[in-house]
């Protein structure tokens, strides 16, 4: 997927002005966020479970080569094929190759954010292959020609009326009204696609190294159908999305599902152990696992950013984030929106262009508090701000302007002496004096005019606390 992270500000402004979108965003807090809080509250030892989740992921990522190797060996033992893709183009070429070799006409998809990174749908469509998303939300955004708005609720920004229009137009049948009717309509439309598909592409919520399994968590059953009906199943995963053992998987499923939707367990948890065995009646003839890097090694190599690879893509950080709730999912300009997206997207697609993403945070910490594996997202946002402000370690990623750098140099000079600090506030008082009205300013010059566009600003106090304290001691 092409990145438009550099356009964050203009995209955010548009979303802020869109009343309908702003209403749609409310469900993120009132629905998902509250559901997570109540699920966590109803779970004994929730904090201990988060701590365990973090420990499992820390251990896995610290030994990533070992567990990837184990996973690949066990998938192959189960009769599957494993492909390590260095980037999206590499992964696309592999999947295209499978489709070409097998003369594939129709591909069904089960929700996969990695396939969004690859832009796989467009690649296959360009080869004349029919590609259909089967997760209802993904299907809706596919029909609308859009990218997912949220990693677990891709069409959360769409109203029922918009969905009705999209389904009616695509099916060329009567426009339906209620949620039940629309779901039924989508089922009817997708049924035939499921039946004629000769290949499926799914993601993987987890891969289990010791068993060589991949695990899909869904509520619609489309993941199970996609992994059992077509002749060929291709699963695509980021190289970080594995756990060592089935016991670890159980711990991770508990925190993933509660954090994502507030459910104790999703309607379907599907484990795929390779292609159909000789004595089995169902399942695909071929199973391929594509394990993609696509820049994740940059996170792995950086001590201060490695923790981002612990992410299990539950969406809790988005649901808790007051910025996401205002700017919405598309403003972030790449596959992963919200707090974790503000780390992953710029690192995977280029920090210089994506520097606005880590800047788009008040550092309120709601994401850190919500994360089921306790990822300290604010710390990493600060880290990326430093990398983009100072161009360290990579000077090519520096995104700060000369004026901004000089402003902070001047600030530093001012703060290095109390007399300069007080002189600064005296100048402030002098400048503010003719402008202030009962102690407040209505308008200030750039670069701080942004404040007074919507808020009054307090004029400096007539006497500083330091002066008051010093005079008081003398009395």
């Amino acid at each position, binding site marked *: 997927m092409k990145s438009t992270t550099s356009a964050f500000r203009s995209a*955010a*402004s548009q979303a*802020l002005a869109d009343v309908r979108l702003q209403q749609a965003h409310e469900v993120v*807090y009132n629905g998902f966020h509250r559901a997570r809080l109540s699920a966590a509250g109803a779970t004994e030892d929730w904090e201990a479970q988060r701590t365990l989740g973090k420990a499992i992921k820390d251990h896995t990522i610290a030994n990533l080569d070992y567990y990837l190797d184990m996973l690949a060996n066990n998938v192959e033992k189960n009769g599957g094929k494993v492909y390590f893709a260095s980037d999206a183009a590499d992964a696309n070429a592999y999947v295209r190759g499978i489709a070409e070799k097998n003369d594939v006409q129709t591909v069904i998809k089960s929700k996969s954010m990695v396939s969004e990174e690859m832009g796989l749908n467009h690649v296959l469509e360009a080869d004349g292959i029919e590609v259909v998303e089967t997760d209802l939300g993904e299907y809706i955004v596919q029909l609308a020609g859009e990218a997912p708005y949220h990693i677990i609720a891709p069409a959360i920004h769409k109203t029922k009326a918009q969905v009705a229009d999209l389904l009616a137009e695509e099916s060329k049948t009567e426009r339906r009204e209620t949620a039940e009717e629309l779901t039924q309509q989508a089922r009817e439309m997708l049924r035939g696609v499921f039946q004629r598909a000769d290949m499926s592409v799914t993601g993987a919520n987890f891969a289990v190294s010791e068993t060589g399994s991949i695990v899909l968590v869904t509520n619609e059953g489309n993941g199970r159908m996609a992994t059992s009906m077509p002749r060929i199943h291709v699963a695509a995963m980021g190289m970080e999305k594995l756990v060592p053992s089935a016991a670890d998987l159980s711990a991770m499923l508990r925190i993933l599902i509660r954090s994502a939707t507030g459910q104790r367990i999703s309607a379907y948890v599907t484990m795929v152990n390779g292609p159909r065995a000789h004595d089995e009646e169902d399942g695909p003839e071929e199973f391929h696992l594509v394990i993609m890097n696509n820049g994740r090694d940059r996170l792995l190599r950086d001590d*201060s950013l490695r923790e981002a690879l612990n992410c299990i893509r539950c969406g809790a950080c988005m649901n808790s984030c*007051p*910025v996401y709730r*205002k*700017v919405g999912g598309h403003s972030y300009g790449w596959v992963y929106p919200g707090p974790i997206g503000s780390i992953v997207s710029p690192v995977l697609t280029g920090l210089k262009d994506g520097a606005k993403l880590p*800047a*788009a*945070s*008040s*550092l*309120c*910490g*709601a994401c*850190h*508090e919500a994360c089921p594996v306790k990822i300290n997202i604010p710390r990493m946002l*600060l*880290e*990326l*701000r*430093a*990398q*983009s*402000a*100072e161009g360290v370690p990579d000077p090519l990623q520096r995104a*700060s302007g000369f004026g*901004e*750098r000089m402003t*902070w140099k001047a*600030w*530093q000079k001012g*703060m*290095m*002496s*109390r007399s300069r*600090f007080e002189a600064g506030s005296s100048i402030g008082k002098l400048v503010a004096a003719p402008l202030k009205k*009962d*102690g*407040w300013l209505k308008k200030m010059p750039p*670069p*701080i005019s*942004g*404040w007074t*566009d*919507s*808020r*009054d*600003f*307090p004029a400096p*106090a007539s*006497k*500083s*606390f*330091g002066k*008051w*304290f*010093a005079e008081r001691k003398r009395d």
Partner: protein
Amino acid sequence: MPNVGMSVVNILEAQGIEVHFPPDQTCCGQPAFNSGFRNDARPVASRFLDIFEATDGPIVCPSGSCAAMVRNFYTDLFRDHPDELARAEKLARRVYEVTEFIVDVLGVEDLEVRKDIDATYHRCCHLLRELHVDEQPNALLENVDGLDLKPMERDEVCCGFGGAFSVKMSDVSTAMLDEKLDNVVATGASTLIAGDTGCIMHMQGGLRRRGSDVQVVHIAELLDSQSDLSRAEQR
């Protein structure tokens, strides 16, 4: 906002504490650090260490954000500077946010103050989620005689300040502020209490701009028996 500092001094002295104010102090370095300019933040933070290392006893700060900078973020700022890192870690153990100090160190939950007002309390982000100081201000507020504390929807949600964020991304920040202020006004309270001066300045600036007469006070002002909240506007 000199009133906040004055109230902190009044509260602590009423508890029999001798208060010192190192006169050369300026800033902990947080503004530059949060903007990513660590090389500019570091000398300022280093100067903070010099000045406060020359003192004894607990260091009390009427801001969860500044306390969090020293306690949580100096480790990142001084990551590649082992000498200062060790000094920062040592100093951090002396730093307390003011309500945390009163309750956890002094062991006082009732400051025996009376304020006849109706108010609501905003739980500032860094106090709540960086320092995990939440029970302390609540306990102190509950024991204020005459205070009618009204519950607020989404009282844990950020007001949109975020330092330079409020200027750099002013439209996003303002949208967050509007949601917060709608929830404040919906309580019907005449006074909004908060624990961080940046957030207070932000919310008061927004309330004034929308013509609301809700006044915002720092929790230290509310807990100070000598403060006159009817004049808090003219700080």
